[in-house]
């Protein structure tokens, strides 16, 4: 990838800055937090944001510092987002490549499996998986990852199929090239673009899905703070203490925005057709 072109793209640049900001937050949170994110303070229940108390974003209904909890929750959200995307992308892409490359019966059955998973409503599927496996952090990763499998399978299969019929691949085959060689030399590099874009989308959707699961009471569980469970806990407090809901919500919005900008920017930079349009 052309790095200078990437950083000249304002969309990609602003996306990277946002994501970098969150990464720095995680590093900082390992060594320093304004308050202990799980310590309760019965004298400071639902304190509004204030400089004097040091609770810059206020406290929740247990007197816990919201800023510290958001900072601590950043790592949790990113782990889920990366983990689920990696899981879905690896399994899905392998399925898709396998199906698209081998064709025939394999293709037929693998794609039927993907179709079935795909036509299953995704939030419901995630709810099912969570309810069966139990509410642990790694199960959230699995639940969201499973939702992603058919998406990656379809995209990679489609890309492989369209490539298979292109001149340079046909030429490679007719020159007697080995199947594996063609796969790694010609096919894989060329399906990376759609995959990378899908990955950036998946990263952002995972965070939204985690928060939706938490809202329904199935996400990461307290006292570990996640943005999702902070929001779900704040649901009843919105009227009397809006800061408990607004700030964790904004934390989600900006990280998701960062991933989306990054993805869009990457597409601009990587997709040759869009690039030429400039």
């Amino acid at each position, binding site marked *: 990838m052309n790095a200078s072109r990437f950083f000249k793209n304002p969309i990609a640049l602003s996306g990277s800055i946002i994501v970098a900001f969150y990464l720095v937050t995680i590093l900082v949170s390992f060594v320093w937090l304004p308050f202990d994110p*799980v*310590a*309760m303070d*019965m004298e400071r*229940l639902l304190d509004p944001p204030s400089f004097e108390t040091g609770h810059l974003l206020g406290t929740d*209904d*247990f*007197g816990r510092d919201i800023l510290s909890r958001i900072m601590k929750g950043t790592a949790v959200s990113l782990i889920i987002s990366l983990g689920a995307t990696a899981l879905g992308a690896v399994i899905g892409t392998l399925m898709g490549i396998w199906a698209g490359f081998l064709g025939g019966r394999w293709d037929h059955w693998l794609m039927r499996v993907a179709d079935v998973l795909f036509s299953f409503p995704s939030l419901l599927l995630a709810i099912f998986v*969570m*309810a069966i496996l*139990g*509410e642990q952090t790694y199960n959230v990763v699995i639940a969201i990852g499973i939702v992603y499998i058919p998406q990656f399978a379809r995209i990679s299969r489609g890309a492989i199929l369209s490539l298979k019929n292109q001149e340079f691949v046909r030429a490679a085959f007719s020159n007697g090239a080995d199947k594996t060689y063609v796969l790694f030399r010609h096919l894989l590099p060329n399906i990376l673009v759609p995959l990378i874009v899908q990955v950036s989308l998946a990263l952002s959707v995972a965070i939204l899905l985690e928060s939706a699961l938490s809202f329904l*009471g*199935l996400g990461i*569980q*307290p*006292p570990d703070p996640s943005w999702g469970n902070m929001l*779900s806990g704040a*649901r*009843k*407090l*919105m*009227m*009397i*203490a809006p800061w408990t809901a607004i700030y964790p919500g904004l934390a989600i919005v900006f990280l998701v925005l960062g991933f989306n900008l990054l993805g869009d920017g990457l597409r601009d930079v990587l997709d040759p057709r869009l690039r030429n349009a400039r």
Partner: protein
Amino acid sequence: MKRFMFPVVLALLLAIPTTTAFSADKILTIGVDQEAIGLDPNIVTAFSSHRRVDLLYNKLVRVDDKLSIVPDLALSWENPDNLTYVFKLRKGVKFHNGREMVAADVVYSLNRVLDPKTASPGRSYLATATAIEALDAYTVKIVLSGPLPSLLEGLASNNLAIVPQEVVEKEGNLQKVAVGTGPFMLQEWLPDNSMTLVKNPNYFEKGNPSLDKVIFRVIPEQASLYAGVKSGELDMATISQGAIILQALKDNTITVMRKPSINLRTFGFNNTRKPFDDVRVRQALALALDRTEIIKAAEFNMGQASGPLPVAVKLWAKDPASLPFARPDLAKAKKLLADAGLPNGFTFSIVTASSYEGGLDVAQVIQNQLAKIGVKVELDVVEWGVYIDRWVKRDFDAMVEIRGGSSDPDRFLYRTLHSTGGVNNFLFKDSDVDKLLDQGRSLTKVADRKPVYDKLQVMLTEKAPVIFLYSPMENQIMSKKVTGFKQVGNGSIYYLAETKISN
């Protein structure tokens, strides 16, 4: 396909707004956060269903706003000995279909509850009943094989409401239709949206109900319920979130009614698992808990500390402050742990759910408080259905629960803590406790029973198989137009029959 279209069309027709009704009608719109699951009084278990049954059916007796037993369909009763009860029925009471309710209906309904085929959750209320007979059209006799001092309290349960035989036989059950004797009649039900009840013009209490219509609206968000009452779209709403009540209390355009309920928030142990089989460990945990803090953080102060009997039941409950371990004592707690061979504390997990009943907020405060005596708590937060599953299988170290209390001590404590109790999921077995519970059950007069249950409350607190924390408040908010409503304490909204609304 045609046969499926009919209900759709019907539902659409029924969806015509009721705002076209005559404005002179006195309509009360009440917002609730859960839809009723069914309406058959002998079968339903869901709290939301009971709240509809409150208005549609009557029982032989009912519980009034002072939690005393008062006449309902029975005008009077006597028990010549503690195995026989004779009830004299009201005359001229009509079911919603116009037929008179007579002794045969009582016999039918109670036998329906006893029949295993009905699978009624109210069966245990009649546990020792051997015969239910009609002596004449207005007299019913219940014969018991053993004393059952909680019988009257049981008869006041919605699950023992009197239903008309012919309707049950025609419909199979009463889950979707309602033909009772109650102050209101079912007019229309749009699931997950609204239910409209209209006044029963033949209701036996003269002058009641005053309302022409009661409309239930299902709104899951507590904040929306509050906003609805504030904007005038709702006249009344049942609120469970302390945070919302706190907000409503600051608002002088809204009436807030609060009363300690007869439910109890409990923190119970699996008494067969180590180290909870050691009474000193349980006592140490009891001494480490600060009820005031728990009520403050988890309920926004909308609760009242309570012992083994709900504090609202004044006749029986001892003052919680007079019971052992009422106040935290960390030094003593640590000493007890050391005596039990756990000077460095231990680790266990609490099964909890994020729904209100599952008590996640309470569990988080407990976790925080127990850390102070070196006990590490892991929260096992599960979805509500999984929570019930763990409860049924007794698969937990400890659990935070809401226990539905009762105005009768035998009813509540026997089933909960006797070694043979039906909902003793603490697996608590103690011969001293069993002895007192059996003794209490054999007595029928309050004066005889009182000393037994006083002793029992102290003993249970000391043995601490389960720690009774507090009774949550029962909260109703309403507009100033609404007058005459009274809270019972068991969640019942029967007093809508006496409620008035001004336009």
